[in-house]
């Protein structure tokens, strides 16, 4: 039995490999803000959210759509989904409460009796699941939930529960233990196997022994304590295998519950996030992913989830229609929303690829194999050559790993030298990557570099500019537009040194 809520045909792996640049992604896109909102303080939810989002780049189109359908069901029936999740949590919790110490694990008889106890609890939990399936299955439309509920109904029939309960009763072995054995090395008994008679339960053992001679009996002297120990060891050898089988079955059911819990945890996280975004009035929509070979990127009202969650208010959304463009160059005013936009691009891509809704009124893009961020790092600014060195080394690491359908977000890269050199480095790198059809978003102040692509009339380049109003104020809205020679540093200077601008500045600092 499998939950299969994350993938149509296999389990979600909480220990799977994450992209090698997960740390950079987490830092540059401030992913922890999203994870925290999904987790609401629950460590487990946090970890599942983290894993699911970061491993999302591996998903194919159909997996994304499969999860989107399940998420739609969850958004329709949030309380039922949380109920199922809670059953799984309760089952796992009660198993932990049944004591199982080191001492116990040395005796098959204690392993057996513990397993029986745990299984009795599991039976109750499985019945709860079954009831939910019986009562609510009709409200769910997604393939994932339909399959799960159908399976629960089919596998957990009343007859099945009766069989299990019967075994649990019999395995308490109140009528004695019937064990088969053979002679091993040194004529010592071996291959001990617990046997079940094929006849009726009632006095079955006695009957076998009554009608099939010869039978010889050994009786222990009442005061023979060593003998009693030896006898109980013999009994333990006999039930060793069955105790193992039962304990392993317990583990299997436990891991079914764990898997159910883990896979639902992702959706519970999505529900949590959804509640918060709805509260602040931000829209969400189910994105339309297209194949990784295509080039598409169009969006309306895209916002940076992290900023919205941090500020707890609706923020300015952006539109863009860069279908068939490989390169998006973003220039313009300082603190004009460039970085926010870039982060929004990265976040929406990750959210789409893990099967979530997108933080936008509408969103569509091609899926990418890998997502890289190449951000300016706030290291020692005085050591310019060292810093450029560091930047290029990071770039080289990225180049080691890229595939043609990767996406790279550059944020003021290669600016750790003078503009001319920086531009030339950036130009060479970007030109090469473009020829390999990679998708690039580049926030830059390097005018020469940015404008170079305008001059060359690079067909698949798209230009966005942070807007500046006539009075020097910002709208935080990006518009399509070619790079301008100044980045309004003067504005910023004026704002900071001008009394009137102080308030506005502190507000904008929040944004950047």
């Amino acid at each position: 039995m499998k939950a299969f809520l994350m993938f149509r045909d296999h389990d979600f792996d909480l220990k799977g490999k994450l992209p090698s640049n997960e740390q950079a992604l987490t830092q540059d896109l401030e992913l922890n803000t999203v994870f925290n909102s999904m987790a609401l303080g629950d460590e487990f939810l946090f970890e599942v959210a983290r894993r699911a989002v970061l491993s999302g780049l591996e998903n194919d189109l159909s997996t994304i759509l499969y999860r989107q359908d399940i998420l739609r069901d969850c958004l329709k029936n949030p309380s039922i989904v949380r109920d199922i999740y809670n059953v799984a949590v309760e089952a796992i919790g009660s198993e932990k409460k049944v004591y199982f110490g080191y001492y116990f694990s040395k005796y098959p008889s204690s392993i057996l009796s513990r397993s029986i106890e745990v299984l009795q609890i599991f039976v109750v939990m499985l019945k709860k699941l079954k009831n939910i399936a019986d009562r609510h299955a009709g409200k769910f439309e997604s393939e994932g939930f339909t399959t799960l509920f159908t399976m629960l109904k089919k596998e957990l029939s009343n007859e099945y529960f009766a069989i299990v309960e019967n075994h649990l009763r019999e395995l308490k072995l109140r009528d004695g233990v019937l064990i088969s054995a053979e002679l091993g090395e040194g004529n010592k008994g071996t291959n001990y196997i617990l046997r079940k008679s094929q006849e009726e339960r009632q006095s079955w053992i006695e009957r076998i022994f009554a009608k099939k001679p010869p039978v010889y009996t050994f009786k222990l002297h009442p005061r023979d304590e060593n003998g009693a120990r030896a006898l109980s060891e013999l009994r333990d050898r006999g039930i060793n295998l069955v105790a193992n089988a039962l304990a392993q079955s317990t583990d299997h059911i436990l891991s079914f519950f764990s898997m159910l819990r883990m896979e639902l945890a992702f959706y519970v996280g999505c529900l949590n996030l959804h509640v918060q975004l709805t509260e602040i009035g931000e829209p969400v929509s189910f994105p339309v992913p297209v194949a990784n070979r295509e080039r598409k990127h169009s969006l309306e009202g895209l916002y940076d989830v992290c900023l919205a969650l941090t500020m707890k208010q609706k923020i300015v959304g952006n539109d863009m229609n860069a279908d068939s463009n490989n390169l998006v160059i973003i220039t313009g005013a300082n603190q004009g929303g460039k970085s926010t936009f870039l982060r929004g691009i990265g976040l929406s891509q990750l959210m789409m690829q893990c099967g979530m809704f997108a933080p936008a009124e509408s969103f569509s893009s091609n899926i990418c194999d890998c997502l890289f961020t190449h951000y300016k790092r706030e290291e020692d600014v005085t050591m310019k050559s060292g810093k450029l060195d560091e930047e290029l080394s990071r770039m080289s690491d990225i180049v080691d790993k890229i595939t043609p359908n990767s996406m790279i977000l550059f944020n003021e890269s290669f600016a750790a030298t003078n503009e001319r050199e920086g531009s030339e480095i950036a130009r060479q790198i970007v030109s090469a990557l473009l020829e390999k059809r990679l998708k690039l978003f580049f926030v830059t102040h390097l005018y020469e570099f940015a404008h170079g692509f305008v001059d060359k009339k690079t067909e698949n380049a798209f230009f966005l500019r942070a807007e500046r109003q006539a009075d020097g104020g910002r709208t935080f809205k990006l518009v399509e537009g070619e790079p301008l020679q100044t980045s309004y540093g003067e504005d910023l200077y004026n704002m900071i040194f001008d009394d009137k601008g102080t308030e506005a500045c502190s507000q904008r600092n929040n944004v950047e």
Partner: protein
Amino acid sequence: MTFQSILFERTDDSIKKETLEAPVFFVDLNLDQIIDAITVGKQEYNLKPFFYTPLNAIDAIKYRHEIFRDLENKKLFEDIKSFSQKMRTMREHLAKGDKLYYKYQKERWFLETIEIYCDAVNRLFRDLSLADLKSRGFLAFREYLTDYANSERFTSLLAETKKLFDDLSSVKYCMLIKDASIKVRKYASEIDYSAIVEQTFEKFKQGGVKDYRVRFLGGPADMNHVEAAVLDLVAKLYPDTFLYLDNYFVKNSNYLDETIGVFDREIQFYVAYLEFVKTFERAGLKFCYPQISDKSKEVYDYEGFDLALACKLEKSSVVCNDFYLKGKERIFVVSGPNQGGKTTFARTFGQLHYLASIGCPVPGREAQLFLFDRLFTHFEKEEDIKNLRGKLQDDLVRIHSILDQATSDSIIVMNEIFTSTTIQDQIFLSKKLIEKIIGLDLLCVWVTFIDELASFTEQTVSMVSTVVPENPTLRTYKIVRRPADGLAYAIAIAEKYQLTYDDLKERIKS
């Protein structure tokens, strides 16, 4: 030709009485360390007597060389080792079984012992019949083994053993344990309960899970009285099988063939030596089968080394040395700086000749060695230098006794003799002694400080220990054939302090 022994072709060659006492020169030549290293881990075979007894015929040495060469075949070597391993297991099994208490347990252990034995013999028989053997020793042994493996005695032992095993392995019984009683009867195809459990919960199977099977302490030798009681009841269920087992136990107490047993021990002489050799060969050191002569005293060895020293050192830092004696040359006079490998050279010469005399391959790329009648050593022991007069006297007495016993076929290895007297005395005594040795025409290595001995006559050859010229404190441990001028060392030190003639001309500017 009937097979006698893998160590000796003829019975009259064999050791009349195995000695546990090493020859007197063993300690001086560090041969005790070598033999210890060779036989370590093989104490149960008591191999040392074989290493303590030199051979006195060239053919007896060749008999062993042939066997060594056969064993260089990796397959054969592994076959022999696996045979030995089985025989060892058999002995251990027998010994453990002897200590057991319950009758049917003890008898089963005995049965298992014989099964191991039969398997060992059969495997060896099969392996040897496929092997490409050339040595007289192995060919004769194979013939013996073939006869034995096909003999009525062995084949019926094998058949009985197999039948008993089959019978016992078909025994299958059921126990009903309830309260303080166990009922025992034959098994009647009841269902495996763990299979039912697995089947019931099959649908939950999720991949790998922990193994909860408990490992019970105690091996097959441990049987408590409850198990023994059950075994007795099982014996009642299968009376014929257990009666057969009783008889088998009584009948086969002398199952082991004596010649096979002796072979198992004696072949370890070769196995142990070859395994020892391999540890050196892996480091690039060479071994060879020396030419042995009992007439020509022209001996040589190229790339030889001190085996005892090599055991202690990093194998890669072992220094090899060459030597040869031609025509009338008989005596190596070794001089040069201390700690330069002089004593090592002398020991190597003695070791090589001794190892050759027991029929073993020796360190070196190529060697010709002499089959000596006696080997004498005279090594000084520093801690004895308390009583000067007594010590010198003692030296002289010992030397005298050696010269009395030595023949022209003997070898003498001497290390810094007569040091407990004045240099004039030393020169005088040494000259007297060397005259006597030359008179005997025997092979000799003499480590000494006295340069004058080196060029004494045409019978003496001067060997000198050397240093690295750039850094005289570094010894090369190379011993080279060169006149003993005592200069090499001095010049090297001078170079180090830039005090050579040329250096000084440079440094002292007018």
